[in-house]
């Protein structure tokens, strides 16, 4: 097998589908680090041409990690809707792109189509799409999910309140949480990244969040983002927990390096449904991010975009409430600068939506990257225009525990204002009841966390 094409008077040849996929990627430092990136701008475009002519059937028959050796490949292929797939198996990737973008293709049709796509197909079409294509395509797809409230409502931009603290101080967590709530942040989830991954510690935090949520009757979800096994043990002890979190990767080996397997996640999902405190059936929260497979030496020579698509193929098996890429957290060896992070953020969001997921984005950067708050704000506006379900909300965008920067409480309010978006409906009603929002805009009260002094409940809640 092999592929040849002539472009700009030069002939390019590729040995495998996997090589075509890798070289068709927009430039990423992680693919260069893996030694699989295109060697020139012309070779990159030549690979895109070849990829655009491949059929979906060829992509299904050539997963980047073989069916026999990888549980993620097996899960994705076994879950493929055969009927949907057989109707499109002869389409080329170019035809798939144009079908997605066609005005006559409604978003609902894309949701149906997604069941007939493997992650390699999702990745392939992404590689031949421009940034604007990715915005237009993702913008058509609405994916809803329900835990205590429903996310993915058209016209809404939700937010994860992320009030982390460097020593897991409950008082410190609540201080940042109350400031965030006063800016209208926290409708997707109130979620803490703990410093110490122990059952006792996360139970203490979950109890405090549960009490905050109940005291003020906040229509939202709570979660502590410890390892899944820690949360499972907390659930078994009867600790209140709405969503069970886990980081995912796109290969079986990379997931093993995270200490997870498919059966373990299935067990966690069942436990969350049976013992968790969420009312609805979407009870999982997953985070992903390009490059994690290479960082654990489990990428099998595949490119980071295709592996990221496979995370979404894995995630959808569990009908999650939240999925977000943490684009920009992993470092310059995978995404070098603001330009690469913006591209990756748009790619991940589109791929998540095309995989049928209620997709959010942790638009972020670290201090050893060539990126700053301006790049991040650009990405946030682009994603909001593309219909992203949620962002993170952090005091001034500065996470004092994870030591990285992402979207701020102010950014959430600004994005809603600029693009005419609203909080999730139940949360908006709650904000109105608290006197923090009126006609979709923050009131003069907003931004003052001291309104959450609990002995003053009678004065605040009408």
């Amino acid at each position: 097998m092999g592929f040849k094409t002539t472009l700009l008077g030069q002939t390019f040849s590729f040995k495998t589908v996997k090589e075509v996929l890798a070289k068709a990627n927009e430039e990423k430092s992680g693919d260069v680090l893996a030694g699989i990136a295109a060697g020139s701008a012309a070779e990159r475009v030549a690979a895109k041409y070849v990829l655009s002519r491949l059929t979906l059937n060829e992509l299904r028959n050539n997963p980047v990690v073989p069916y026999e050796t990888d549980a993620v490949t097996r899960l994705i292929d076994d879950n493929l809707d055969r009927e949907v797939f057989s109707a499109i198996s002869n389409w080329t990737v170019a035809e798939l792109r144009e079908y997605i973008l066609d005005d006559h293709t409604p978003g609902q049709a894309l949701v149906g189509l997604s069941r007939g796509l493997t992650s390699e197909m999702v990745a392939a079409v992404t590689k031949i799409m421009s940034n604007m294509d990715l915005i237009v395509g993702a913008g058509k797809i609405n994916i809803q999910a329900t835990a205590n409230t429903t996310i993915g409502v058209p016209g809404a931009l939700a937010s994860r309140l992320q009030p982390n603290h460097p020593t897991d101080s409950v008082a410190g967590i609540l201080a940042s949480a109350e400031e965030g709530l006063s800016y209208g942040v926290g409708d997707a989830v109130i979620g803490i990244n703990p410093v110490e991954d122990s059952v006792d510690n996360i139970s203490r935090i979950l109890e405090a969040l549960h009490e905050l949520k109940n005291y003020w009757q906040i229509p939202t979800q709570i979660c502590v983002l410890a390892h899944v096994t820690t949360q499972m043990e907390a659930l078994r002890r009867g600790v209140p927990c709405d969503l069970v979190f886990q980081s995912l990767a796109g290969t079986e080996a990379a997931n093993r390096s995270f200490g997870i397997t498919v059966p373990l996640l299935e067990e966690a999902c069942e436990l969350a449904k049976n013992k968790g405190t969420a009312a609805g059936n979407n009870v999982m929260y997953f985070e992903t991010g390009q490059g994690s497979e290479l960082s654990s030496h489990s990428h099998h020579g595949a490119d980071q975009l295709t592996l990221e698509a496979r995370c979404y193929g894995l995630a959808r098996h569990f009908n999650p409430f939240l999925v977000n890429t943490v684009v920009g957290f992993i470092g310059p060896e995978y995404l070098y600068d603001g330009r690469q992070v913006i591209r990756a953020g748009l790619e991940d969001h589109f791929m998540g939506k095309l995989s049928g997921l209620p997709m959010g984005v942790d638009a972020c950067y670290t201090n050893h990257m060539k990126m700053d708050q301006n790049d991040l704000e650009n990405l946030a506006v682009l994603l909001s225009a593309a219909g992203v379900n949620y962002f993170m909300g952090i005091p001034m965008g500065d996470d004092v525990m994870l030591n990285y920067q992402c979207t701020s409480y102010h950014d959430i309010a600004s994005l809603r204002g600029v693009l005419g978006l609203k909080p999730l409906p139940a949360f908006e009603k709650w904000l109105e009841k608290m006197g923090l929002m009126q006609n979709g805009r923050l009131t003069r009260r907003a931004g003052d966390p001291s309104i959450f002094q609990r002995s003053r409940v009678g004065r605040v809640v009408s």
Partner: protein
Amino acid sequence: MKYRHHIPAPQDSAYLQQLLQATPARIGVWRSGTRPLTCDLLKFRADHAAAQDSVNGTVSEELLAGLDLPVLQTMVRDKDEYLTRPDLGRKLSTTGKAYFQQSTSEKRQVQLIISDGLSAQAIEANLSDFLPAFQLGLAYYRISCHRPVFVKYGRVRLLEDVATVVAAEVFVILIGERPGLVTAKSMSAYLVYQPTADTMDADYLVLSNIYSGGTPPVEAAAQLARMVNHVIQVKSSGVSLKLITLKE
């Protein structure tokens, strides 16, 4: 002490003071429309500038000499290569390997590595408090320890390469964390039980946020010694350790 904030007329000033005291996060900042005030916006940019600059710093020779630490290097040649080639930061240089092969023959229980990682300032700020306290802690548990070594441009999984030339049960690395805006002085300690070619991220135990505003270095040293003692007893670290302790 009264904490600064910019909220013009807080509903409950005393409660606001409690909140400000509880976290180093940037709260009580107020807004102009939906945007931050100018002073907070510029403070943020100043802190980001400091963090970017600290990534490029180096640990002083005086500190390392004062603690009597041999200085080795990974296969990384400079800071730029360090940032884009983590694979090279996980391997000792030829000279580094030779040092261990010549100096350590007998087996001891712990090998401690110290590396600048992404923040030289983190090592500068914490190491002189941490190191003697950690050594005392190990002595308390009667745990034997090889001579600690500084390795420039290291990554956490450098421990797996060190384990190929050092006979020990537990390998520990103290490493400068990626600087945040609150501090560029935060250090992490990772430990792993007898790493091999099959070792994975989940096999590591971590103690992070070691600095004066997080877990202070002396306290962290005692905690780490306790963790090392536990790992030696159960002969496992990371997620597999958690599963073992959950079953107990």
